[in-house]
């Protein structure tokens, strides 16, 4: 009964032109957020100066050449903008990976980290921070070891799930959970036997995620990988839809899901590996955004992938702004902000809307 009401009030949102319209509105909102957020920060810089730097760097206008260097230029161009641009790509990437992983394991509770990727990454980071593993890899060796840990674990999960018959969603989930707890155990073991207080704090900070380390060269690579991945998954909506119907039905509809599941897992692990590399473990957003978007647009992946990507970007920009300004002179880890703001909003929608979160069969 309640479901019917839900459907009625959202009927408009289910039609194609509306969803394209919503995408355009979100793009507009994203640009607006970018321009607004760049003026906000712990250092007080006038709006005119901020846009002066942007005009100088992006448009190369000669009238603004006074902004080409100096401390204002550095704050805007080297700190604020890289952060915002990485927020955009990471928000979009996590939201889309969340959707894809939920489809792969056919479970609405999954998030991008569920198949052990997070524990693999944190084991890598722990080993790097505590034992100095991978210091030869250069400045961001923690990120690189975390990336390798994440990627190794997803390969391992895929291999184990395929032993003794083809992998299905349940086997993947269970293999992921088992390897996940093994990795956490090794991380805890390492932490437990070390006396490095500072190291422990570093790990904690890293596990909560932060966009503070964003640098332009890394961002370029990120855009290439993440946007590429998102565009790829936008073309795959039909197969993603079928994943939710299960293997048997998909075969009768002409698609053998097995190879697609493997391919999608591989692509999401690369995407998430890069995200973890650049910003640590930003949690919850990969679960929150897909469900938030589904509340309004249903489950059809044709619609929810682009809408979620854009929503994720806008959401992460503002979460980052709040993490910078909520407590004066201190920067909160962004993961904390996301959960503190996201969870209550999520619960509100959960109570208010009649969306089933995949639970109503």
């Amino acid at each position, binding site marked *: 009964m309640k*479901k*019917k009401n*839900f*459907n009625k009030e959202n*009927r408009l949102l*289910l039609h194609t032109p509306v969803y394209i319209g919503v995408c355009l509105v979100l793009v507009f909102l994203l640009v607006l957020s970018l321009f607004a957020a760049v003026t906000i920060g712990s250092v007080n810089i006038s709006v005119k100066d901020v846009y002066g730097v942007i005009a100088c760097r992006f448009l190369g206008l000669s009238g603004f050449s006074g902004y080409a260097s100096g401390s204002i230029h550095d704050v805007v161009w080297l700190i604020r903008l890289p952060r915002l641009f990485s927020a955009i790509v990471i928000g979009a990437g996590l939201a889309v990976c969340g959707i894809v992983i939920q489809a792969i394991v*056919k*479970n*609405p509770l999954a998030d991008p980290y569920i198949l052990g990727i997070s524990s693999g990454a944190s084991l890598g980071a722990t080993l790097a921070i505590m034992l100095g593993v991978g210091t030869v890899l250069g400045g961001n060796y923690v990120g690189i070891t975390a990336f390798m840990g994440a990627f190794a674990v997803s390969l391992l999960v895929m291999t184990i799930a395929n032993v003794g018959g083809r992998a299905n969603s349940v086997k993947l989930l269970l293999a992921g959970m088992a390897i996940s707890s093994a990795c956490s155990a090794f991380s805890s073991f390492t932490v437990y036997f070390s006396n490095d207080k500072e190291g422990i704090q570093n790990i904690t900070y890293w596990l909560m995620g932060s966009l503070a380390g964003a640098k332009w060269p890394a961002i370029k690579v990120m855009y290439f990988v993440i946007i590429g991945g998102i565009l790829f998954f936008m*073309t795959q909506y*039909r197969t993603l*839809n*079928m994943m*939710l*119907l299960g*293997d*048997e*039905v998909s*075969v*009768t*509809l*002409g*698609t*053998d899901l097995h190879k697609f599941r493997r391919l999608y897992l591989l692509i999401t692990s690369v995407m998430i590996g890069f995200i973890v590399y650049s910003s640590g473990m930003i949690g919850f957003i990969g679960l929150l955004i897909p469900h938030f978007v*589904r509340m309004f647009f*249903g*489950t*059809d992946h*044709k619609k929810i992938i682009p809408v979620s990507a854009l929503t994720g970007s806008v959401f992460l920009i503002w979460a980052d702004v709040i993490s910078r300004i909520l407590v004066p002179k201190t920067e909160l880890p962004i993961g904390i902000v996301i959960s503190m703001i996201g969870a209550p909003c999520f619960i509100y929608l959960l109570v208010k809307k009649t*969306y*089933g979160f*995949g*639970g*109503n*069969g």
Partner: protein
Amino acid sequence: MELSCKEVAASLGGNPIVKGIDLTVKEGEFIGIIGPNGSGKSTLLKCIYRVLKPSGGTIRLGNQDLNSLSVKESAKQMAVVAQHNYYNFDFTVQEVVLMGRAPHKKMLERDNADDYRLVKESLRQVTMSGFENRIFSSLSGGEQQRVILARALVQQTQFLILDEPTNHLDIKYQLQLLDAVKRLRLTVLAAFHDLNIAAMYCDKLYVMNSGRVIRFGTPKEVLTEQLLKELYEVNAKITEDTESGLLNIRYTPSYMKG
């Protein structure tokens, strides 16, 4: 389009379930498979619709060996309505039916106006017009099964497999679903539990028991009181309705024999 099975065998977890079945469905026929629980009906059908791999024998669709076709190619020629369709996520009816167009789509091809027209048309055929934007999981069992039939119809296949499609449905919906199928004059192979229903709709019946075909013929030839005793260990009276010519199977419960 003709379907033929030759000495098809299949095992589940090492146990032979289907033990060498020969079966033919000619173009335009409505063929039923009946048999007690565990007789191998569903396993055989699953081999035909490629969810299971047969351990022996050959299945031919038209003049091609099923094994030589990709699942995509076979899904263009054969659609399936199975007994259980439970979706854990909220799809609308239109989205569910649209998935039936998948076998006709290339990797990067989007849905076009033709696809939507076919969806509308199939929903009309199963008398579900106007349900396009309803959430699939909020529908009743009968409505859901008719939507699944619509999805099979947009696959635009010659051949339709029904794997106990009317289980758990009220009699009204059982008849509605099968009437919809019958009207379309497709080539159909269907497994049934309900013998009265099977007798009503099928041109011919295969009777299966412990993995083998034990009888084949028209419902009148096959369904005898003796067979029901032998197969299901029940007593029944079979009469023919003089008006409609339909078979009527009345079971006699053992407490009444006194």
